[in-house]
């Protein structure tokens, strides 16, 4: 296994060894946020959710986003999935502005969004069929079976979503997302509703699958430990309105990662405390 967390492509030699100045490298990055702002119209005028967001993400990178609720994390990712358009600046994927949703940027939705009237198999099959309508039938079915096996759901293929547990539903949702080989995988708090054990299991599975496929992953989380275990970089957002990227933390642990090992690493607690400090002191949520 490779242990390089990040592959840097076509980086300028003059460019300093830092993550913080993405706007200069706009044309080099895989996924680039350039001076992005997003506001929503309200009765009192435009409500600014995001302002001045600059971020460059390399192909194959695993990036987690953390921040208090209302900081615009979901809005930020919806600019990548294409459900929303920036009010200012641009979001580009491989140099092309993102204009609408597409299967190259597949989303694992917060509440799974499986069709309750279709079986597990049919839910995944629908995605495969939509993306490759011309592949032979047997091939499409093989792709579905392969991905259900990957998340350990071969047995549950003919069940409906309401007959399986929340953890299994999330597995289906991940299988559906990965089956269509997206370039970017977007996960909006995918494990938030799950119990601690299922959550850890799924984190490990996700990491294993990502190690094999190496698509670019953008994931929103509320859980610092989850981010430290999974991500190459952790993007910490300031509070809204007009939220922006406060700081980006590089997570240097070697891959493949082992949860017990990284938790023994003294750096783990430095990073963890740094992130906690960011969230609870420097950008504490003012709960009035």
């Amino acid at each position, binding site marked *: 296994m490779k242990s390089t967390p990040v592959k840097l492509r076509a980086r300028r030699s003059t460019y300093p060894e830092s993550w913080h100045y993405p706007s200069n490298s706009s044309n080099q990055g895989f996924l680039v946020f350039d001076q992005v702002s997003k506001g929503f119209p309200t009765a009192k005028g435009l409500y600014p959710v995001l302002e001045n967001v600059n971020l460059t993400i390399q192909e194959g990178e695993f990036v987690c986003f953390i921040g208090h609720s209302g900081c615009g994390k979901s809005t930020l990712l919806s600019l990548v999935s294409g459900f929303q358009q920036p009010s200012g600046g641009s979001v580009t994927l491989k140099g092309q502005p993102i204009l609408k949703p597409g299967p190259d940027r597949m989303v694992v939705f917060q509440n799974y*969004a499986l069709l309750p009237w279709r079986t597990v198999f049919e839910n995944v099959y629908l995605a495969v*069929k939509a993306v490759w309508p011309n592949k032979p039938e047997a091939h499409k079915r093989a792709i579905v079976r392969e991905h259900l096996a990957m998340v350990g759901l071969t047995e549950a293929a003919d069940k409906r979503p309401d007959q399986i547990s929340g953890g299994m539903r999330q597995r289906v949702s991940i299988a559906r997302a990965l089956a269509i080989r997206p370039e970017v995988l977007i996960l909006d708090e995918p494990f938030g509703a799950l119990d601690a054990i299922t959550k850890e299991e799924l984190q490990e599975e996700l990491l294993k699958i990502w190690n094999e496929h190496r698509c670019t992953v953008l994931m929103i989380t509320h859980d610092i430990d989850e981010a430290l275990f999974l991500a190459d970089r952790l993007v910490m957002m300031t509070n809204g309105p007009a939220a922006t990227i406060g700081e980006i933390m590089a997570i240097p642990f070697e891959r493949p990662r082992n949860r017990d090992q990284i938790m023994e690493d003294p750096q783990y607690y430095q990073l963890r405390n740094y992130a906690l400090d960011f969230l609870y002191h420097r950008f504490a949520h003012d709960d009035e």
Partner: protein
Amino acid sequence: MVTQAPSRNQAQGTSILAPVQRFWQKRGADLIPPIIGIAVFLTVWQLVSWSGATRLPGPLSLWTDTRTRELLLYPFYDLGGLDKGLFWQTLASLGRVAKGYTAAAVVGISLGVLVGTSPWLNKATYPIFQFLRMVAPLAWVPIALVALQQNQPAAIFVIFITAVWPILINTIEGVRQIPEDYNNVAKVLQLSRKDYYLNILFPSALPYIFTGLRIAIGLAWLAIIAAEIVMSGIVGIGFFIWDAYQQNYISEIILAVFYIGFVGLLLDRLIAFLQMKIAPARK
């Protein structure tokens, strides 16, 4: 409450009655109250009728009156023209309902999907639909007669125009209520129109569509009777009632009313059965 449990020992040996007895043991408790309710209702009606307070004959007249007894015993007679048994009269009315209702379902569902998927069209048509659906079935009769000139198509049009609104409005609502998540899945997968309709739109809107269909079948049956009463000279249970009234055969009216209520009940059950088969309720 009456606790007249059927004795278990009595029918123990008789094998023919065994299924009946089993059914009674299972459902008896549910069946006793409605049976008593109906018996009390008919008794009171009969007593009021005997007391002379009204010209309306009691339920017993259905049997004591020769005309209704014959109608009751020979529902399938056919002496040509309008002189047919009640089965044929009902069937003629049902045929019109079937035509009008089918047209209403086809138009209501397809137009509902079209309007429901377009917020602009929805805004544009909302006042028109809300206005038109308030027009009573009987008010459409003269319009239908003027527009179509003939009784038969006019009757079918009245059914159509009565039944179409609940189907249309419920379909629009069903399409508008599709959970955002499912629509987002469709968008991100860029589902084809066909796949979207088959996998998301119809399964999601189906419970609403069936609610509309069920309201509409009741309204359609109400409307055909009203329409036939006004349109003279056609075979049908509605005109049968009007004819009986004009000739002062009051018991015949009561018999026809029993037919109408019973058929209406069956139609409602039929749609409820289809709903259960096609779109079972989900948790």
